């Protein structure tokens, strides 16, 4: 245990970002403290039932959603679906490990001025991130990279592949999953349990809870403190972060001295912590001279489509998101919107599917659909959501949570571009299902945000964002943001691989700085 008075390297969060940075530093012999708000859940504790699994690991501290997004209507107190546990949201992620596309690092240059959007280019290129993507793919064991074999084509993917081919699409793949197709790196091969979001009981799916965290512990250099909620980052007279105040497992407030702080609390808790760390020197919140902390919140344009097929599919058997169609991921303004989208396979358990079908609908129409469960197949839309300055995380002026902290308010209004992209994507899924003979097709709206990005975005110009390309705060030289909050745009791809690649690059930068005596 690192002494509270010893100025430590403190990482807040143990998910894809925090767990990765912790591992990279401890592997180099550098001592770190990780503060994790949640508890340690062991793989054998995972429950193969959606409701129980959701209750076991979801971050449900009170929040408030406002604006025109669906969450504000149907789940205003819990608009996100992220995990509060050691390993963070890598416990429930579906393992899709896609790289962003080259043009997606330059949305301002490529898309131009878009009504209702506030675009900047990333201060780094795909070429700069490529080697880190490759390292990330190796660490996660991503199928189809580094000679790692693909999984067999599961039933849901067979539907998507055939549908896409019949419509003339070319780029369909079941590769790039961070789920072992055979035993590798101390983790088992996938046995196709199904519903990866419930937590992987055999650890075939990569998570920091089964890879980076135990490995870091084994170095003897990780001081992991679960059930420890960071509530404030303090700074010294020079404006450098020098302590993290947190509530420990016993409910007592502690103050860990710090010489360097990495925040990796996901894109709502990360800006919330900075906003809660305001001071005379940083009256708008720590590292917020730009006023951008909390702004440009993005969660992807999402939604689902389910179809009733003429013969059995059994979508519940095996990997939940087993492949994707990439043809529509391009930027093609002729379609009437900027950015692109992926169509991914999707399976839902009956109770979840029933909840997500139009709640205003019931009776015979819904019963006949759910009652044909083994004939259903599913697709998920994952599209680029453009950043808007007023889609943002703020602190509620009056309402406090169970710890007495101001609850975060997440405001999202949907832009014309997002709506146009979604309409196009839904026409595509409709056509895909029609192409394989679906006789009943349901478009469903998904309320809960799982891909959270952008709230401390990286920028070349300190006035346009909060951190630089390494995630280092423009205002505070020993404060880093490690998670998806740093994304300058959302891209069409699932964010985790990019988060890990950026975290690897950041950790390398921090280690070099430490070696030079910068911190």
């Amino acid at each position: 245990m690192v002494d509270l008075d010893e100025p430590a390297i403190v990482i807040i969060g143990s998910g894809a970002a925090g767990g990765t940075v912790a591992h990279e530093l401890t592997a180099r012999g550098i001592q770190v403290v990780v503060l994790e708000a949640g508890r340690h859940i062991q793989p054998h504790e995972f429950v193969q039932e959606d409701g129980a699994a959701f209750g076991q690991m979801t971050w449900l501290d009170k929040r408030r959603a406002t604006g025109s997004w669906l969450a504000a209507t149907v789940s205003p107190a819990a608009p996100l679906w992220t995990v509060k546990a050691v390993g963070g949201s890598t416990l429930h992620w579906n393992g899709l490990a896609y790289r962003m596309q080259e043009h997606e690092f330059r949305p301002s240059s490529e898309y131009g001025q878009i009504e209702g959007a506030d675009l900047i280019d990333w201060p780094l290129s795909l070429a700069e991130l490529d080697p880190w993507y490759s390292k990330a793919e190796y660490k996660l064991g991503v199928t189809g990279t580094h000679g790692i074999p693909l999984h067999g084509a599961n039933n849901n993917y067979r539907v998507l592949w055939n549908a896409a081919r019949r419509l003339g699409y070319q780029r369909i793949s079941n590769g790039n999953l961070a789920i072992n197709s055979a035993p590798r790196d101390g983790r088992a091969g996938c046995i196709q349990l199904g519903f990866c979001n419930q937590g992987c009981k055999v650890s075939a799916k990569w998570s920091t809870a089964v890879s980076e965290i135990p490995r870091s512990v084994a170095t003897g250099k990780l001081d992991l403190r679960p059930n420890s909620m960071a509530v404030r980052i303090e700074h010294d007279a020079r404006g450098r972060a020098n302590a993290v105040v947190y509530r420990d497992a016993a409910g007592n407030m502690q103050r860990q001295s710090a010489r360097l702080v990495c925040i990796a609390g996901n894109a709502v808790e990360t800006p919330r912590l900075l906003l809660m760390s305001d001071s005379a020197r940083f009256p708008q919140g720590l590292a917020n001279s730009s006023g951008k902390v909390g702004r440009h919140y993005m969660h992807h344009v999402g939604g689902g489509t389910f179809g009733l097929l003429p013969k059995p599919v059994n979508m519940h058997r095996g990997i939940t998101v087993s492949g994707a169609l990439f043809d529509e991921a391009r930027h093609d303004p002729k379609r009437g919107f900027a950015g692109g989208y992926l169509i991914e396979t999707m399976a839902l358990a009956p109770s979840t599917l029933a909840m997500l079908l139009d709640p205003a609908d019931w009776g015979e129409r819904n019963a006949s659909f759910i009652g044909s469960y083994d004939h259903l197949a599913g697709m998920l839309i994952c599209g680029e959501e453009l950043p808007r300055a007023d889609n943002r995380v703020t602190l509620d002026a009056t309402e406090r949570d169970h710890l007495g902290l101001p609850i975060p308010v997440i405001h999202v209004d949907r832009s014309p571009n997002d709506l146009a992209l979604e309409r196009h994507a839904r026409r595509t899924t409709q056509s895909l299902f029609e192409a394989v003979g679906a006789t009943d097709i349901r478009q469903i709206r998904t309320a809960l945000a799982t891909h959270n990005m952008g709230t401390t975005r990286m920028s070349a110009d300190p006035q346009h964002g909060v951190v630089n390309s390494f995630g280092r705060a423009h205002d505070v030289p020993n404060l880093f943001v490690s998670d998806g909050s740093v994304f300058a745009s959302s891209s069409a791809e699932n964010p985790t691989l990019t988060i890990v690649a950026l975290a690897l690059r950041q950790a390398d930068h921090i280690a070099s700085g430490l070696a030079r005596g910068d911190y």
Partner: protein
Amino acid sequence: MRDASTSSIEAAVSAALAETAVLSRRQVIGFGTAALSVGMFAGWMDTAVSAVSVDPAVATLATVARDMFPHRQVADSVFVKFAQSQLGVADENQRKMLRSGLEDLERRAGGKYRQLGPAARVKLLASLAGTEFFSSVRFAALINLYSDPAVVGLFGYEGASFAKGGYLARGYDDLRWLPDPE
């Protein structure tokens, strides 16, 4: 006009009343909008249900649930057990809300909800959509039914797979009515 489904509900109620078993099973508390407001599933908890009540409201509530979820494959006894459990929840306010909702329903039905034809019942239920009673019953029935392995098993959902070794050797890729992907 009486239709087959309500008369069989009556029979199922009689059968259930003949049993004296006390139910203890997963229940939904914090119904409807309250549960939804903290997320899709946050209202789930384990509570014990006190006793089976001898009560005509059971048959009406079972019929309402069946009308909301008219699965021909599902036995009436499932809906009756659901109704019994709901009318026996520990939360008194919840019980009162359900009772008053059922009274309102019967008032609108002239005291003969179960004797109405299916189309008339559905029309009446539709007029209640958006009420707390309707939302609560719909949400609770949805969770109860679709989380019950015996129910969803009838639709082809095979449930938790770990104890059976997953689907690697049990058909994760057995779809043959479309060509194999290249």
